[in-house]
């Protein structure tokens, strides 16, 4: 191993942007995660993929037979399955990211003491956060690609723009993962972890997932529009038919802001927890 002298190291630290928080080695956290997947249960991994597919088949095909055609984002009529499919993709991006960044992180933080070990090395809290979020996104990417393929097979894709749903669902996942990890750092018990489900389930049911927002009174609409999932649902729904409006930019902007705030929160919290 090369030995470094005090002087050059000082220079190096001064030139580094995040000082003691980041050592540009999130890659090591990522390769650890990939190595650990060898021992994970692949059936559990696959269940995350099948969940939205089963919803799509039961609601889209089953319920869709009664509902018939509905009005799409551009005003033209589309099948009910095509209407809810992008919403389900947004939900699965959210679920995967939240699961990875909350339950997984909670366990590693409090029980496996994994981060404690990592932070005794050259790694900083930001390396750990970025690495874990990247892994969550990698899983999200696989689910999104798989679900988009299923949509294609079911004949629900009518425009090449739909392929952009994959990067867009990564954007959604990134937003939820970064914020989720930050929030998890505050939680200490399993009971507190259940609060996360308490927020997620209503968000899933009421964020214009299965029917348009217009059925609600105005003040409920505002509340839902303030929540992140609605922006994800609308974004993917627009992309699925290739309709882009100024609202598209607002949806994307919402997630960019969420990512920035989430990363800031996560880094500050990890620093407080591990470098106190």
């Amino acid at each position, binding site marked *: 191993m090369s030995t*470094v002298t005090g002087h050059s190291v000082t220079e190096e630290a001064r030139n580094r942007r995040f000082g003691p928080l980041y050592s540009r080695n999130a890659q*090591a956290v990522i390769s650890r995660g990939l190595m*650990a997947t060898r021992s994970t249960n692949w059936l559990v991994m696959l269940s995350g993929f099948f969940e939205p597919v089963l919803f799509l088949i039961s609601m889209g095909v089953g319920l869709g037979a009664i509902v018939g055609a509905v009005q799409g984002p551009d005003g033209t009529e589309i099948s009910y399955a095509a209407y809810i499919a992008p919403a389900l993709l947004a939900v699965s991006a959210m679920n995967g990211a939240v699961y990875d960044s909350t339950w997984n992180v909670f366990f590693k933080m409090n029980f496996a003491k994994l981060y404690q070990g990592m932070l005794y090395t*050259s790694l900083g809290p930001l390396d750990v956060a970025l690495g874990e979020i990247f892994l969550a996104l990698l899983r999200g990417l696989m689910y999104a690609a798989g679900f988009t393929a299923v949509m294609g097979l079911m004949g629900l894709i009518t425009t090449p723009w739909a392929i952009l749903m994959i990067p867009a669902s990564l954007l959604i996942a990134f937003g939820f993962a970064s914020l989720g990890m930050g929030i998890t750092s505050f939680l200490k018990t399993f009971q507190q972890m259940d609060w996360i489900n308490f927020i997620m389930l209503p968000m899933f049911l009421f964020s214009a997932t299965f029917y348009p927002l217009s059925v609600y009174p105005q003040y409920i609409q505002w509340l839902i529009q303030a929540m992140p999932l609605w922006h994800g649902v609308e974004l993917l729904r627009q992309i699925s038919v290739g309709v882009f409006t100024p609202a598209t930019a607002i949806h994307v902007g919402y997630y960019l802001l969420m990512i920035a705030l989430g990363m800031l929160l996560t880094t500050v919290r990890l620093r407080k927890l591990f470098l106190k």
Partner: protein
Amino acid sequence: MRNKAIVSSTPSDGLPARQATVIAAEDLRKTYGDVAAVDGISFSVPAGESFGLLGPNGAGKSTTMKMIGAVTQRTSGKLSIMGLDPDSHGPEVRALLGVVPQQDNLDEELRVRDNLLVYGRYFGLPMSYLRPKADELLEFAQLTDKAKSKVDALSGGMKRRLTIARSLINEPRILLLDEPTTGLDPQARHTLWDRLFRLKEQGVTLILTTHYMDEAEQLCDRLIVVDKGRIMAEGSPAQLIREHSTREVLELRFGSERNAIIGPELQGIGERLEALPDRVLIYAHDGEAALEQVSSRGLRPVTSLVRRSSLEDVFLRLTGRSLVD
């Protein structure tokens, strides 16, 4: 690595390693709210020394270790690890250290050898270096035949040895060991001491906390006795015993109720007397002579034992309390 040594001890500046100070602490303090965990301690450790922090639970040993290990920021005072301030140079300081925490935090999702490889990656070390290094360390930790085992299949002693092997992956100049043998059976402890001794012979600076006297006496060149965040005494084990205790100790047991009552009747024998709930300790230069005096006063203890003074006695003298309670 080309050479066989686990850690290369040649310093980059070409000076003999033993002369440089690797850790310097000056009036080091750490407070949590109103509680001072570490309350102004100063010490310095030269390269290659085996330095111990001895004290009961809650004395501030682990907090001091965490400050040295650049995972806890100090409240005030000065601290320098090989010339670097751990508060501002966390990653660089940690790259120079090997850490064996009080509780094993091995990666249970990875196999034994992978634990070493992945840990090395955290330091940004290349696989071409890590592969042979991992094999070498498995050999050192006597775990070669367990390379592909799962971590949770290892015994407590094996896990500890793996944790030590892992801490050596970056060829640290300083190894921090927090209670390295707590919870291990006697045989596992001796195996571990032997491994640590080899590291010491290779010039690694060892910093260890312990509340075991025999461990401190076995491993430490020099130690500080810490209680309530302060240094009570400093020196080599032999020096501390010489300064704060007598050569021998006579241990008498009169039965649990009578130990305290009989105390006054023993006054005047030896240099000093300590009546504990379970036994009476008489500090004397000649233990056998003291025992004869006890018998001549017509006192018949249930058991008697003459032994050499240990660090336990030093601690008792300095703080009025036992180390392990």
